[in-house]
């Protein structure tokens, strides 16, 4: 392998008129020096098939001037930094090269700076304000730039990537009541912006309610008769990541309702004869309990819907 590298390197150098002669006299290149031939220089050594996957991605479209391989682009060195010193040292030192990964020499902030050089004004425009930046998370902890298909851009695999760190949410995926993430019909980015956001919890919408009603538009209202927490924040009653109770509720009804409402005239207390232990069942407790009557819990547009019963 080493011999092959040397032969290839020699071939590259020989391709530049007078290069081998000049090399005798040249001082050590600074780390800011770029390679002589861009990607062709890099590929002379870095010829692993796994790295070539990038040539089938949006990062390597020669017709796209916005990308690193577009006309005038810095190719590999757009992301990895100037490689002149690295080439001159025959790969024995990184020089100006930025390596990526958890165990890389470059700290996450330096790695990220390479990505943000292009994306800070686009997809990652809110990166600096986000929690991932604050936790020193590297872009490549989630993204695989050389893969033909970056797993984090596929809904089903994205969930696995995110829950690699967010483990409590990994467990939530199997709860009895949940969103369809396990089936790949939604992904974490359906609601959250992992690249940062100025919204609460890095949500894609301006608020919790706006995010939820992006899909559940029927609860947007405004209704004639409204339920105050519905208009304020869906997460007052629901846990979007999953619940052991039906309908993503934070705790089961009727007790959830009774965290805010004292049931005057509603003998829904467990230790009354109407409870399941006490003989005859009660519509206050069984079935949908409170919702057996107050079914329009998200709001009602019926003129007689004051108690959300119509």
């Amino acid at each position, binding site marked *: 392998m080493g011999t092959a590298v040397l032969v290839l390197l020699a071939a590259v150098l020989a391709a530049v008129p007078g290069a081998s002669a000049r090399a005798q006299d040249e001082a050590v290149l600074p780390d800011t020096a770029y390679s002589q031939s861009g990607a*062709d220089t890099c590929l002379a050594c870095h010829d692993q098939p796994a790295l070539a996957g990038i040539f089938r991605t949006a990062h390597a479209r020669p017709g796209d001037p916005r990308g690193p*391989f577009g006309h005038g682009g810095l190719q590999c060195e757009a992301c990895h930094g100037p490689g002149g010193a690295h080439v001159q040292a025959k790969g024995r030192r990184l020089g100006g090269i930025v390596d990526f990964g958890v165990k890389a020499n470059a700290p996450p902030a330096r790695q990220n700076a390479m990505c943000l050089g292009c994306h800070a004004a686009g997809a990652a*425009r809110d990166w600096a304000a986000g929690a991932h930046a604050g936790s020193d998370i590297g872009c490549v902890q989630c993204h695989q730039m050389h893969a033909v298909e970056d797993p984090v851009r596929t809904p089903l695999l994205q969930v696995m990537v995110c829950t690699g760190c967010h483990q409590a949410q990994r467990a939530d995926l199997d709860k009895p009541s949940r969103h369809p993430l396990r089936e790949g*019909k939604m992904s974490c980015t359906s609601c959250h912006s992992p690249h940062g956001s100025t919204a609460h919890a890095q949500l894609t919408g301006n608020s919790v309610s706006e995010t939820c009603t992006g899909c559940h538009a029927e609860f947007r209202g405004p209704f004639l008769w409204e339920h105050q927490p519905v208009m304020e924040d869906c997460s007052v009653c629901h846990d979007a990541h999953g619940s052991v109770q039906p309908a993503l509720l934070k705790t089961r*009804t009727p007790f959830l309702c009774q965290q805010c*409402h004292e*049931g005057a005239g509603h003998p829904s207390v467990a230790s009354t004869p109407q409870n399941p232990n006490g003989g005859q069942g009660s519509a206050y407790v069984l079935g949908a309990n409170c919702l057996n009557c107050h079914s329009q819990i998200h709001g009602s547009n019926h003129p007689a819907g004051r108690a959300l019963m119509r």
Partner: protein
Amino acid sequence: MTTNLEMQLPRRSGGALRATLAVLALVAGSAGRAADAAPAPDTSGWTCSQCPFFEGLAAQGELGLTDAKGANASFGRYTGEDRSGATLAADAHGQARNAAGNYLSFDLQRLGLPARDATLTGGHEGRFELSVRYDGQPDRVADSAVTPFSGASGGLHLPANWVSGATTGAMGTLGSSLVPVAIGTERRTLALDAHYFAGPGWTVFGTLSHQEKLGNLATSASFLTQAVQLAQPLDTVTDTLEAGVRWAGRRASVRLSYTGSWFENSDTALRFDNPYSPIVPGSLQGQLGLAPSNTLQQLAASGQVQLPWRATTLNAAASLGTLRQDAAFVPVSTLPGSATPSPGSLDGDVRLSHYALGLGSSPLPRLSVRATARFDGRDDRTAPLAVNTIVTDTFAGGTVVAPRYGQNRMHLEGGADYALLPWVRAGVGGTFQDVHYAPGQVLDHTHEVESWGRVTITPRADLSLGLKLGNGLRKISGFNAAALPSAENSQVRAFNTAPRDRDFVTLTGAWTASETLALTLESMLANDDYRNSPLGLQSEHERSTSAALTWTPSATLSANIDAAYQSQHSLQNGYSGSASPAWLLADRERYWNLGAGGRWTYARWIVALDYRYAPSSSNSDTSQGGPNESFPQNTTRLETAELGLSYRCSPAVQWHFRVAHESYRSSDWALQGVEPASVPNLLALGIQPLHDSVNLLGVSVRYQIGAGVPK
């Protein structure tokens, strides 16, 4: 409702808008300078002649059959695979590109199931991109429901021979009238997405989507104290358009967009026959008001600029929206002579506003800081309407003014982390949240302050531990009991607006023991104290711990184990009337999740194994001056196991075999045994706790064209 809130909003909004425009002006001004400063090497000789750019076609298709034995709504909730028998397993994906820079890709998944989706994307490099997407999303809720009602959106009717009764037991023909009804919906979305790259840094974009939602929802209604559960037909459409333009320079960007969303409900009301003996003469039918059609329109602007010092980035966002609803009212009752209120519709008008500023900076080499200031306003400008109500199509309820709700929420958030040593980072931060409610609500405002400190230790590159501790305190303004509905106890405090003292701790760890072994850990504890509330939630304790171990001894072998435990314990009290002592409830939920899996590649074979076990339990114990009484324990238990076997018989052909089993069991005292006639005053749908035991057998063949498309 007019008032300080309305008078303040324009002033606040205007100030924030001016600030936003100033930031955007700064963005635009500094961007040009930043772009000029960027040095670049001479790349005229960088021909990339060795670069293996993709040209041609590469695609992969999979075709086969999957046989599911025992499948039902529980198993097929989000896939639609809800019946026993064979289904088509068909997927395909691929990409094509030519030398001129035109490209096309497609991704077709689960074509044999209602959860099928398809995406077709094409474009010309650097010029434009178009994408068409179809997404089917079933939501099967229950297949155990039965009902005596028939009909559709026009109304639900009882059989001609129906015998009414004061109780379900007295409904003589109930048993013979019941027919099964599927509870669940289908959501189908067709979307068109377009991007036009107009010039250096400029992109014009647009997304148009049409979404239909059809099926049956489980709902209910009552006639005074007699309730009936119904299968409510659903037929809604939501059309959404988002269009805008964005400019991205090297150090700054601006994005302007318009979003319009039109929700249309074909059924604004559901009329249904009264199965009970009418409490008042003529109360033969009831009518529910359903979600009214509504429209949301928003204009949004956001910008970002990297300032030329201390790695500082400034973000700004602003959004203004209107939410309108003007669906015609139905009559106040089905009783003869009932009128429609005047005016005949709400003319609902809600103004939504959002302004945010974000800052990230490293003022010192070892110090990083972040801060966000955010304002969210919901200003309900709907004219309050007085309605002369009829309660549950049964008796007069008097004239009541419908209250309007709104709030202004100011949120400040910040944090700083400092590298004390190369292997120790310490941070502090906090949030301040101030919510001002519109006049007429039980609270004027709440203030919540949360502070936290954290330390992250990285003694080695392969080991990191993090600890975060914090406290949050929510205070409220005076409580306006007069704003409560007349039936509510003035002692009760809604838990989202109650005083609260919160402590929380999180612990995280990651250890890459070797090139092949990695362990991660996450643990959280949070205690909420609501004991300043006279009635309502008193305390809540949450715990969660998760751990995962992955072992990858070689490129051909990997294994993983993960485990999680979560618990939630709450105490609340309530009041049943002056003659009874207060009641107490202790509610405890526990949830476990254990999983293991592995993958082994040997010669032409790939073997994959996955197993998961996820049980939960819920216990509710109550007391009312006497000994505790317990509700029956509610439980769920999910168990899945799957073996996948792949054999590559040629570079282009691969066979795939799949054997899987899923078992799900649940118990729920609110549903178990509650048949249509079980409860005298509840004509139920008879939905029972979900369960399934499904065996899956699948075989398929994958065929590959061109160079592989590894997924």
